[in-house]
């Protein structure tokens, strides 16, 4: 009778232990769940965190150190943060960023925030990089960016007085490789969450909008005026982007095919990923090629500057006239609304600064 009980308890214990790690001494870094803002958990589905790269305190700290360290570049002169600076919501102010030897790229640097909510995980303006881990491989070897080689970078990190210990703490091994570097950077990037703008506080009932900002939001949401919400989020989608690819009428012919280069489908020519409209105050110039220096120019584009082409999005209206032609008041109110999406706490968050 008692024997039965003992047997079954032993059996259960055996089953429970069967899957767990055999070595009792194995090191585990400290799990660090993302702090998901209320507006996000209320309104949108959870972020993408690969189970092969869980967030940990040590991993995020290492990723941050790497992000700000020029050691990743060929001549130790350029860090990720040079083109992705915290005070610019992790982009830079130049139209095309120059790499370590002054070579210019052909695309505007991108701000980095809320990246874990890019559900399709297609990164870059044209979506060519799948997943954040994979993305972080590119800049290191890109000849217009950090122009290094992974063998070189791994060697420098391995010989560094501190990095082997940091990798040990983050991943339980002193053996550094490119995969672990990109995992750590991706963990840090996932912590870059921006959700504390004036408009967020308005949605949480903490502040009011001015009449101009409110009218600007109405223009944004009005299909007959701005009609921005179909692609750039809304009060119900706090990412302020659909992370999908569209041709928003910048050009009649394309020098950069965008998504078309990636898919090879001519129907994708001239399509780029809609950027988030958060933090525009800090991220000028605008568009994939940084062609617009001000928000006035952007609004002017949508209002009267549309260029027709076979792949232009069907939502771009009255293209023959250049656009819907917003009134001067609607234009300036729309700008006032866009600026309510600036998150000052994000750009000064000490967790994200190099200190």
């Amino acid at each position, binding site marked *: 009778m008692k024997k039965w009980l003992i047997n079954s308890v032993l059996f259960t214990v055996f089953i429970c232990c069967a899957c767990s790690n055999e070595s009792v001494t194995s090191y585990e870094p400290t799990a660090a769940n993302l702090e998901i803002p209320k507006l996000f958990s209320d309104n*949108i589905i959870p972020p993408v965190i690969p189970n092969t790269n869980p967030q940990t305190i040590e991993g995020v700290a290492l990723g941050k150190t790497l992000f700000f360290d020029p050691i990743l570049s060929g001549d130790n002169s350029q860090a990720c943060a040079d083109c992705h600076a915290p005070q610019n919501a992790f982009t830079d102010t130049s139209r095309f960023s120059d790499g370590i030897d002054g070579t210019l790229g052909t695309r505007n640097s991108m701000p980095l925030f809320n990246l874990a909510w890019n559900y399709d995980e297609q990164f870059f303006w044209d979506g060519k990089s799948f997943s954040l881990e994979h993305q972080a491989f590119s800049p290191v070897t890109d000849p217009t960016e950090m122009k290094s080689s992974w063998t070189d970078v791994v060697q420098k990190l391995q010989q560094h007085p501190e990095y082997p210990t940091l990798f040990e703490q983050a991943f339980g091994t002193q053996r550094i490789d490119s995969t672990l570097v990109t995992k750590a950077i991706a963990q840090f990037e996932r912590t870059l969450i921006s959700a504390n703008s004036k408009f967020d506080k308005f949605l949480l009932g903490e502040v009011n909008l001015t009449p101009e900002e409110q009218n600007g939001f109405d223009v944004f949401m*009005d299909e007959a005026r701005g009609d921005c919400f*179909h692609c750039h989020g809304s009060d119900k989608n706090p990412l302020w982007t659909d992370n999908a690819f569209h041709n928003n009428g910048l050009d009649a012919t394309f020098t950069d095919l965008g998504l078309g280069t990636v898919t090879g489908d001519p129907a994708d020519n001239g399509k780029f990923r809609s950027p988030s409209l958060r933090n525009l105050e800090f991220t000028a110039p605008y568009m994939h090629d940084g062609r617009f220096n001000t928000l006035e120019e952007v609004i002017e584009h949508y209002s009267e500057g549309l260029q027709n082409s076979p*792949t232009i999005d*069907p939502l771009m*209206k009255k293209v023959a006239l250049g656009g819907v032609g917003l009134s001067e008041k609607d234009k300036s109110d729309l700008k006032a609304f866009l600026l309510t999406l600036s998150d000052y706490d994000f750009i000064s968050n000490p967790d994200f600064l190099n200190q």
Partner: protein
Amino acid sequence: MKKIVLILTTALLLTNCESSSDTDGTVQTSITFNFTHSWDDTAVSVDDFNTIKFINANTDELSIERLRYLISKVTFTTSNNETLRLGGYNLVDLTNSESLAFTPTGVLSEGTYNISFTFGFDNDDNANNYQDLNSASWNVPAQLGGGYHYMQLEGKFIDNTASETGYAYHAIRAVDNSGSSPVFQDTFFEVDLGKVTITNNATINVDMNIAEWFKTPNTWDLNVLNNMLMPNFDAQVLMFENGQNVFSLKPVDQ
């Protein structure tokens, strides 16, 4: 003795996940809906997108670049008028093959039923907040009553001046915002697929004839109605009327 209890309990636990029978012994089955699309007699898939190749009832040539729509409240009615409602809703997006198959939550007994579903959301469902639909940017602005789109059909057509022009045929609950307070008219509708005998995890094939949105009873003129249709009360009512005959049941696989 105790050993037998243990074995029995274990066996019970292990078999728990198998399909179950209800008290009167009839077999319970889950149902999958497959959504197919056509332009009158020709099948349409995402491979047909982005080319001007369709001609509507008004003889306008057009292309499709996007087609997404929402269906909800799948309902099975027995011959003695009992209704069984399976849970969930589905956003069909032709560019996402997974969304073309939908298995509503819940099971029902094998037998003969009348099957219906709601195109869009009824007003109660439309008042809820859905994280997956918000993430898909499927919302309707609060200024138009909030809630969700029922359909987004977009593409290009050749207009009266022979130039390619975009259209955005977006179906939502009709709202007239011209007065001091908005006036609504319901434009979700029930699609009655008719009687089906269900056995053994049936798949129900539902076809949408896209051409119907432009045909009966209202011949749709894209030159007049192509964009900014969400705030257009009359256009929403026309869509509602034309929607009545777009869905049909194809042979059931079981």
